[in-house]
């Protein structure tokens, strides 16, 4: 390798880095504010969907918690200054992925709605947990009835055919643990307030 080669290789790399860097910087400057805004918007929409009755600015973050060492949040939903329920984000260990779940409960701690924000379960089997027919099964369930059964049941949660592990993850590892946490966290806050 001659000095000329070394010079040319250096020049090559410099030009590519500079041109590429400028291009990426330009695209990033254009897109990142939009990405940030849309992320925020989508999150607000997802929360609003969980609690359609709540005021526009009535969903307030209460704090963070860490199911499976992942960052999750929980919220309180208010209407005209009165608490109408809570929303909890949680993670559950599914068959082939961590399932990111959002669910809302009323003040009686019965589940109102659940939504799967992200999952990568087996296509055709486990990913049916994201379909409305399964999510509807959670409506009105309390702690004692968040349990998976394999036969048709109105009282408990009926598992998706061929996807017991995913169903159990959402129900027991996800929603039930999230609800248990919420109740505990709210008690702690009450004690603090009384003091």
């Amino acid at each position: 390798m001659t000095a000329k080669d070394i010079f040319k290789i250096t020049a090559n790399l410099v030009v590519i880095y500079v041109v590429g860097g400028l291009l990426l910087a330009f695209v990033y400057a254009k897109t990142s504010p939009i990405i940030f805004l849309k992320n925020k918007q989508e999150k607000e929409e997802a929360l609003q969907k969980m609690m359609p009755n709540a005021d526009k600015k009535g969903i307030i973050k209460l704090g963070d918690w860490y199911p499976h060492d992942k960052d999750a949040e929980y919220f309180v939903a208010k209407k005209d200054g009165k608490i109408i329920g809570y929303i909890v984000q949680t993670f559950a260990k599914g068959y082939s992925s961590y399932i990111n779940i959002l669910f809302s409960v009323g003040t009686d701690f019965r589940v109102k709605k659940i939504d799967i924000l992200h999952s990568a379960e087996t296509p055709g089997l486990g990913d049916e947990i994201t379909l409305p027919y399964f999510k509807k099964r959670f409506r009105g369930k309390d702690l004692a009835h968040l349990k998976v059964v394999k036969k048709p049941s109105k009282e408990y949660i009926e598992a998706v055919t061929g996807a017991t592990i995913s169903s159990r993850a959402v129900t027991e590892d996800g929603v039930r643990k999230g609800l248990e946490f919420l109740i505990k966290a709210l008690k702690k806050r009450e004690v603090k307030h009384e003091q």
Partner: protein
Amino acid sequence: MSNEDRISNWQLIKNGIFKENTIFRLVISLCPSIAVTNSVKNGFLLGVAVLFVQTMVNTTVAIFRKFIHPKIRIPIFMLIISGWVTVVDMVMAAYARAAYKEIGLYIQIIVAFASILARAEMFASKNRVCNAFFDGLGSGLGFLLALVLISFFRELLGRGSLWGFHIVQAKPMLIFILPAGGFLAVGLLMAFFNWIDMRFYGGKGAGGASGH
């Protein structure tokens, strides 16, 4: 542009779609052809992303082809590819949210697709900018069509739906939606194209041996 050029451009596109189809003829980049083809929508979206990256990478490489030192050409190609992939990733995240949610995970993996590096090394680094552009267009289209074709069969057979809409209320052959079914679908389709190639065009089948 002269008449002769136009014909050769059209031939370059056709070449990318049929004679040198990335998946069915050259048999490279089989990973995405199995990973993202469990629904037509995913297959199509990734195909479009690859089409764009392939065309831009080919054009960029052809522009710089005389300037790039042969000793470091592969790292330079990789830098160009990753640059364009990052552009696609950011633009999709900003303007195509729904699509990004479905295949966002796979966009960044385009960097490692053998097909893109192969076209840059085999064609773009040796040809004029205009030709390289049409070659990228052609092989990108070939890749897109292959993905759509594979996912068409997989979604129809495995889920009984197309583009998310139910065609039949049943899952005729669930295995086709699972990874194992991906291998089956790619294998069967490749066999079918090999058969056409050998029966009607006197070729030797896939794997680069079908020199007409």
